[in-house]
């Protein structure tokens, strides 16, 4: 069985196919801290791609409330439990310090979804492809695909004086704990579980942008991809008897729509474009022949993932090297976040709470334009303010704010947007309005 290098795990791992990498990779960052779960992204995707018969339950983009929500229900808790059963007590990271840029989070010493099935079903040393299963996974039952988000947030009916259409509804105990919203689309993984599991080789990764697609002609609807995708983002359609998944809005990514992109530059996916909370940014990162990201610190995604390490992959221990990156929520207990985003969490939160000058400028560019930003630059201005911020653990630090301008450039290296940070406003509260 071939070995491939997974930089998120800091080591080689088993995978059914030899390494083969695209020239560029569709990658994106979600800033969890700013999401209000308005579901505009969800509906933008739904109304574009999954509004037809047989697709009713499909939410290629969904936003779920952690720690208690999930779609399909308990998708992550179930797989984490399966991995723990396959490798009891062994799903751990070696955090010995390393200076290797290709080992940013430490070395994962547990088993991935490809390795756990290999151990479990291959005791006689058979080759990987001869076993009945290729990837550790499960097929969600029908009821697990029902009612996304129901009562995740509002177990109690709304106040009827403000929301008269609320009706009686139900009354369950209200969640009284911390929470955060997790935005999820297909991760267009470097080593996709769906692709590994497909017995028809109907799933492929595009060489030009790394988008993972299901060839609808070849697909026979065996649902092995549904079973294998650890993020449960491949979904079966009964009316066509094929599986479907997020296509990264590739017509937009290609910039070939004569109406939307007359100048031929790539534009953001529907879910990214629709984000009113300005939490999403996407780009295409350059990939070397060995699969590593080529050094490109002016690319916004490269800068956040590789330079600042402020954005982290979701469940990197699954082993698929997902290309969605998340700025973790800073109020959530670290243990929980480390399980979800790996050992890079403490650094990422510190980098976000008190961002560097360049990062603070870049954070303003989120959702500033519908065109994909391939390069950004910062024009420095004078210092206009500072404030004290509290880092995790209670340490205090001073955040300096500068009159900097962040500029975004499109695929043709043309300036498309610029944002300038102005002096912050301090409003005197009403009780002190005449106190000077």
């Amino acid at each position: 069985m071939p070995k491939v290098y997974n930089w998120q795990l800091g080591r080689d791992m088993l995978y059914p196919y030899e390494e083969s990498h695209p020239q560029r990779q569709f990658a994106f960052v979600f800033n969890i801290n700013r999401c209000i779960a308005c579901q505009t992204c969800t509906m933008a995707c739904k109304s574009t791609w999954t509004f037809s018969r047989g697709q009713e339950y499909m939410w290629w983009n969904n936003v779920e409330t952690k720690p208690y929500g999930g779609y399909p229900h308990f998708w992550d808790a179930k797989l984490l439990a399966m991995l723990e059963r396959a490798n009891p007590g062994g799903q751990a990271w070696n955090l010995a310090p390393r200076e290797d840029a290709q080992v940013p989070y430490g070395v994962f010493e547990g088993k991935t979804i490809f390795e756990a099935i290999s151990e479990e079903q291959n005791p006689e040393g058979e080759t990987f492809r001869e076993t009945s299963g290729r990837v550790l996974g499960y097929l969600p039952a029908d009821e697990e695909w029902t009612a996304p988000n129901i009562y995740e947030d509002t177990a109690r009916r709304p106040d009827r004086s403000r929301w008269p259409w609320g009706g009686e509804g139900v009354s369950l105990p209200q969640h009284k704990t911390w929470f955060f919203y997790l935005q999820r689309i297909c991760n267009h993984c470097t080593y996709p579980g769906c692709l590994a599991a497909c017995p028809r080789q109907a799933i492929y990764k595009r060489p030009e942008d790394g988008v993972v697609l299901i060839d609808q002609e070849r697909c026979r609807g065996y649902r092995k991809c549904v079973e294998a995708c650890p993020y449960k983002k491949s979904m079966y359609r009964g009316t066509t008897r094929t599986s479907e998944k997020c296509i990264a809005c590739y017509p937009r990514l290609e910039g070939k729509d004569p109406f939307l992109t007359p100048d031929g530059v790539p534009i953001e996916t529907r879910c990214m474009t629709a984000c009113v909370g300005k939490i999403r940014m996407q780009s295409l990162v350059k990939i070397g022949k060995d699969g590593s990201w080529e050094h490109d610190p002016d690319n916004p995604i490269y800068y956040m993932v590789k330079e600042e390490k402020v954005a982290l992959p979701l469940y990197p221990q699954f082993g698929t090297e997902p290309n969605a990156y998340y700025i973790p929520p800073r109020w959530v207990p670290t243990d929980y976040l480390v399980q979800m985003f790996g050992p890079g969490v403490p650094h990422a939160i510190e980098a976000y709470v008190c961002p560097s000058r360049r990062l603070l400028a870049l954070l303003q560019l989120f959702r500033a334009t519908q065109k994909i930003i391939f390069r950004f630059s910062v024009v420095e201005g004078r210092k206009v303010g500072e404030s004290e911020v509290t880092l995790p653990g209670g340490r205090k630090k001073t955040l300096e704010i500068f009159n900097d301008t962040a500029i975004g450039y499109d695929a043709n290296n043309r300036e498309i947007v610029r944002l300038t940070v102005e002096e912050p406003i301090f409003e005197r509260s009403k009780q002190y309005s005449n106190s000077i």
Partner: protein
Amino acid sequence: MNNELNNRHGRDKEPEFDDPMELVMVPLPAGDPELMATCLIEEYARLGKGEDEILELFRQPIYHIHFLYREKGETWVRSRIEEVLARTGRMRISVTVLHQIGGLDA
């Protein structure tokens, strides 16, 4: 609704753990919802939102942070917002978009 029906309401039934549709509750020993509220106020301040706009978010019953508004009341929420804004101010950002995509909603 009479007493007999009230007794049979779903909320009064004991949980059955072999029921696949039963909601499962797990304890979350760590974490601080008030810290979460402070962090969220800081985030919206960085986005340039003012006191009234942030307060309106807390008032929304479909947004989970509303549970703190219900529990602690508007005065508490408003004072927390004032406290954060007094410390951080709200960010002001000017935006210039060039080469806007034309036509209908893209």
